[in-house]
């Protein structure tokens, strides 16, 4: 499986670390809404298909990335920086 890092270009999956489901919304730290915290910690869509994910290019430029991956075919449909600001020309 290859993931195209927006900075480094296509790299083997071994250079990346999965950082979890990209659909989660973290409640404000002071929030006492137990349902919101429960949803953040436990609720997952678990689709058989396209899935929003957060990955880190931990063995390369160390950027955190938004990745859309098909959980059935492992096709990588898109990658982008998880945080804006560092705008760099893509090599892909």
């Amino acid at each position: 499986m290859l993931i195209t890092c927006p900075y480094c270009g296509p790299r083997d999956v071994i250079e990346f670390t999965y950082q979890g489901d990209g659909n989660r919304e973290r409640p404000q730290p002071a929030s006492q809404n137990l349902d919101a915290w429960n949803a953040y910690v436990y609720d997952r869509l678990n689709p058989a298909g396209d899935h929003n994910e957060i990955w880190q290019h931990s063995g390369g430029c160390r950027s955190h990335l938004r990745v859309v991956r098909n959980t059935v075919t492992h096709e990588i449909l898109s990658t982008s920086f998880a945080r804006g600001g560092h705008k760099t020309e893509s090599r892909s």
Partner: protein
Amino acid sequence: MAEQHLPERQSPLEPEYHPGSHGNFEHGVDVILSETRPGSILQLAAWPGEEKRLIEIIRNVTGLALPDGAGGGVSSGARAAFGFAPGKFTVVDEAEGFAQAFAGAITPAIGTLTDLSHGRTAIRIAGPKAEWVMAKFFAIDFALPAFPLGAGRSTNHHDIFAQIQRSGADQFDIYVFRSFARSFWKALCHASEEVGYEVQ
């Protein structure tokens, strides 16, 4: 002001550094391995939105104009610079104490400078089979069109991080953690045996 005394730096490769020709060199030496021992290895990082200002500072201080784009770099012999991550750059100089040249230029509003001179070891591989040997270690494209002259890459070998700059058409400079440098050096020597190598 007291004179600054820099500790004498010893090579971590020393016990395994054997100048001369090795391996299958009867038909010629196809790669030359060496430790370049630059005096200064610096890591510069810009806060988001300050990248252009940092690139400008690098140009003013080093005289090296970094090309636009990911991994862009320049290697001029005594001095080198390249991008290795968004907004982050490695700057290398032959002389010790080069961090001082950036003092006052990189303000806290622009970014940070970390002096890694004692934390990294620089290893050079050169020769017609340099790409071939490098491809045994790193899963990236070493062909010249994909990895242009001066460009930098961040990657790893067996989970050990490495930065690589192409400093010549058939020459690469590899920056590895000092604590892993001897292990990497030994592996590099083994990988070079089949093509015949010379340690300089």
